[in-house]
């Protein structure tokens, strides 16, 4: 079964450093998303991406965050200057057909900011 692949699985970074979280969505999918989950809390929407541009973003997704699809396969989330409160699991997801199909999530990247 096709999978959404995320790397790295765990990243530890110093506060103020830039991090890039990487995702390879399912190959024929068209809609891409980032969600995050702070430990023990619910999954929260960050941003959706379609046709090489952001289609929707949450209030969490401020100027410190950016997304990019640098080539035909990768989808990245960049956090420019990490804060302690950015520590969370970050999940990438993709769907092929918004009407018919559900989201496929990756296994996540655990980001720890120290």
């Amino acid at each position, binding site marked *: 079964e096709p999978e959404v692949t995320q790397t790295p699985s765990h990243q530890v970074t110093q506060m103020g450093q830039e991090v890039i979280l990487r995702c390879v969505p399912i190959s024929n999918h068209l809609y891409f998303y980032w969600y995050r989950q702070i430990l023990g809390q619910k999954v929260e929407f960050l941003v959706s991406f379609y046709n090489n541009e952001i289609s*929707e973003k949450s209030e969490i997704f401020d100027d410190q965050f950016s997304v990019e699809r640098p080539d035909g396969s990768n989808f990245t989330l960049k956090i420019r200057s990490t804060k302690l409160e950015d520590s969370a699991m970050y*999940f990438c997801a993709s769907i092929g057909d918004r009407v018919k199909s559900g989201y496929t999530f990756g296994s996540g990247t655990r980001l720890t900011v120290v």
Partner: protein
Amino acid sequence: QQQVKQSPQSLIVQKGGISIINCAYENTAFDYFPWYQQFPGKGPALLIAIRPDVSEKKEGRFTISFNKSAKQFSLHIMDSQPGDSATYFCAARLAAGNKLTFGGGTRVLVKP
């Protein structure tokens, strides 16, 4: 108005029993209601989903009941097994948008 409220926060059920998780929403513009199962260290995995024009959907041991007038939906896990022990999230998606709004999650423990 965008919230999805989920209860209970945790649930312990004996093997073979029924697990019931409830969710409620306010926004009538939601058009798709999935349930996700999440194991520790893994991403949410789609379990079953329903649209508001259907009152019930069953897939194997998992059933969603949907009450449009009450703006509530629930997940029933029949014949619960220890392998069902996980965190379950309900979610809702706006018809006009892309994002999912998740409930707070229910941690289910099935005792052998």
